[in-house]
């Protein structure tokens, strides 16, 4: 463990006893950002004055006896959440100078609890990418090996937690963007059920898939953040209006007799042998803890990538139509007419991957192709969701256990010339978004190069608690979540 920056639970305890102040903790994070981030590029914007002011307020609030566990905790926020008056770029030239006129519900809730926002983290442009290389602000380096990607799209949030630049961070996940970078940087990342957390004020990528979640050093920290993030929001009609359970209580439950499904389709061709071995070791740990492991089949698994890469670009092409150079964002110089303004503004403001997905999405929605691609993909999406529902029901499962990614962190530049090979790296995570299920990635080993390996726990709709129970039992029994990359230059 990196002793320099505590976990959220440790920090909350130290703040509560007065052993540590929020100002001290915030200064420690800012000092590490200044020293270590030049070689990582995890942050797009650091807000030192804002963070220190919030930390002072948090300390005063605590002195008045009005603190809760998040009061005074320094967090890093993916640069996809609108933060009022604090630049929000979404990793794009299009929004290079955008100052949101309003605050996202997630950050508003965290700020209301007294959390300190250190700054905004780097990400693939508009969250489209699996390696952080599509960011207009340059790629993020993996703290475990600076020549490798931290994964994406929440790569900056992942690297910031792994390198101890913050106590915890917030990411978003449309096809694996919390879980895959969590796996590649040796941290814990939780994507809640679609609708568990409000999307209000998140820059939209694919509205039927996007979901915000915590990225933390361990699953206890994830539970603490989710407790504050989850819940109904009148500003998001898809935010589910059901009570938020006590996630802390879920951590303390036993996994004895808990039924865990292991789908054969996630262990086929393409899975690196070292990752396979690490996941098999996870199943042994659960068996020793008294869980009931059950082989299952999810036969629609292999259709998830084509389905996702029709639906997500279709929704993206529609959502990104708002970037027209008129109300906010980049505008080209000297447009000769309105059409020229649109076409050149968008050509200049968007990077290659975003343009590729807009083109793909526009194509599959265009007249003559809509039924063959988009409608077809929506039907297959239902089959994928039913696949999961059937497995949970027939085998009476609490969670499903899989690898998070087929391999450990790949080299910067290794896949970014070939969109298809990049898309294939999402194979174990995108099914979950299509079905709207909650899932977490937790660290479970290091490969021969010393790079982190992650495993995924998938839960039933709104049953984040089962993931927390299973995740916490694993982290109580093992040490992988304590591994740290150390301070490399």
């Amino acid at each position, binding site marked *: 463990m990196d002793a320099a920056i505590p976990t959220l639970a440790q920090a909350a305890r130290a703040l509560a006893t007065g052993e540590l102040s929020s100002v001290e903790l915030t200064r420690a994070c800012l000092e590490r950002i200044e020293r270590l981030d030049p070689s990582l590029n995890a942050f797009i914007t650091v807000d030192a004055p804002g963070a220190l002011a919030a930390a002072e307020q948090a300390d005063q609030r605590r002195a008045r006896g009005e603190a809760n566990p998040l009061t005074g905790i320094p967090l890093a926020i993916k640069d996809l959440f609108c933060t009022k008056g604090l630049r929000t770029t979404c990793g794009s030239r299009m929004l290079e100078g955008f100052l949101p006129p309003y605050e996202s519900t997630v950050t508003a809730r965290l700020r209301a609890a007294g959390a300190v926002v250190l700054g905004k983290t780097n990400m693939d442009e508009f969250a489209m990418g699996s390696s952080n290389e599509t960011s207009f602000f340059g790629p993020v380096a993996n703290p475990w090996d600076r020549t490798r990607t931290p994964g994406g799209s929440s790569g900056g949030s992942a690297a910031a937690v792994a390198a101890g630049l913050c106590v915890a961070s917030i990411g978003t996940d449309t096809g694996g963007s919390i879980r895959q970078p969590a796996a590649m940087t040796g941290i814990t990342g939780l994507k809640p059920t679609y609708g568990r957390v409000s999307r209000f004020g998140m820059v939209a990528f694919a509205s039927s898939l996007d979901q915000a979640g915590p990225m933390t050093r361990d699953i206890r920290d994830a539970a603490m953040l989710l407790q504050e993030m989850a819940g109904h929001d009148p500003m998001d009609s898809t935010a589910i209006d059901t009570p938020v359970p006590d996630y802390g209580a879920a951590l303390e439950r036993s996994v004895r007799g808990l039924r865990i499904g292991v789908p054969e389709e996630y262990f086929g061709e393409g899975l690196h042998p070292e990752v396979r071995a690490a996941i098999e070791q996870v199943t042994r740990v659960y068996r020793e803890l008294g869980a009931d492991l059950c082989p299952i089949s999810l036969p629609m698994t292999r259709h998830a990538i084509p389905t996702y890469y029709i639906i997500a670009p279709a929704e993206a092409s529609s959502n990104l139509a708002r970037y027209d*150079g*008129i109300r906010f964002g980049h505008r080209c110089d000297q447009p000769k007419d309105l059409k020229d*303004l649109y076409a050149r503004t968008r050509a200049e403001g968007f990077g290659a991957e975003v343009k590729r997905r*807009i083109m793909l999405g526009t*194509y599959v929605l265009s007249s003559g192709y809509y039924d063959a691609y988009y409608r*077809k*993909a929506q039907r297959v999406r239902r089959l994928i969701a039913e696949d999961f529902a059937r497995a949970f029901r027939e085998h009476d499962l609490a969670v499903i256990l899989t690898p998070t990614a087929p391999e450990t962190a790949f080299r910067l530049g290794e896949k970014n010339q070939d969109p298809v090979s990049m898309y294939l790296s999402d194979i174990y995570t995108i099914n979950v978004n299509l079905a709207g299920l909650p899932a977490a990635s937790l660290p479970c080993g290091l490969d021969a190069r010393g790079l982190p390996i992650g495993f995924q726990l998938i839960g039933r709709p709104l049953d984040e608690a089962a993931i927390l129970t299973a995740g916490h039992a694993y982290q109580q029994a093992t040490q992988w979540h304590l591994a740290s990359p150390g301070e490399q230059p």
Partner: protein
Amino acid sequence: MSITEQTIRHVATLARLEIPPEEIPVYTGQLSRILELMEQLRAIPTEGIDPMSHAVEMTIPQREDRVVNTDQRDLMLSNAPDQAEGCFRVPKIIE
């Protein structure tokens, strides 16, 4: 399904994206390759399957019909690349 350069030009127009002529073949090749990946879906029988547009089955909630946003005109204009007299300004459309 392979895609032609003419289709790429048409889609770029629909998407309001200027694509320089030398990049048309690049998009044509990349999109064709991506669409090849999609072809496997054709073989899946989906007759009678209801298309799924959202992960959660729910009805759209309704709220009371009253104004909650007060006047924020100047705030909303503050990010505009060009504005005049409280309006967004665009190039002339009709000569």
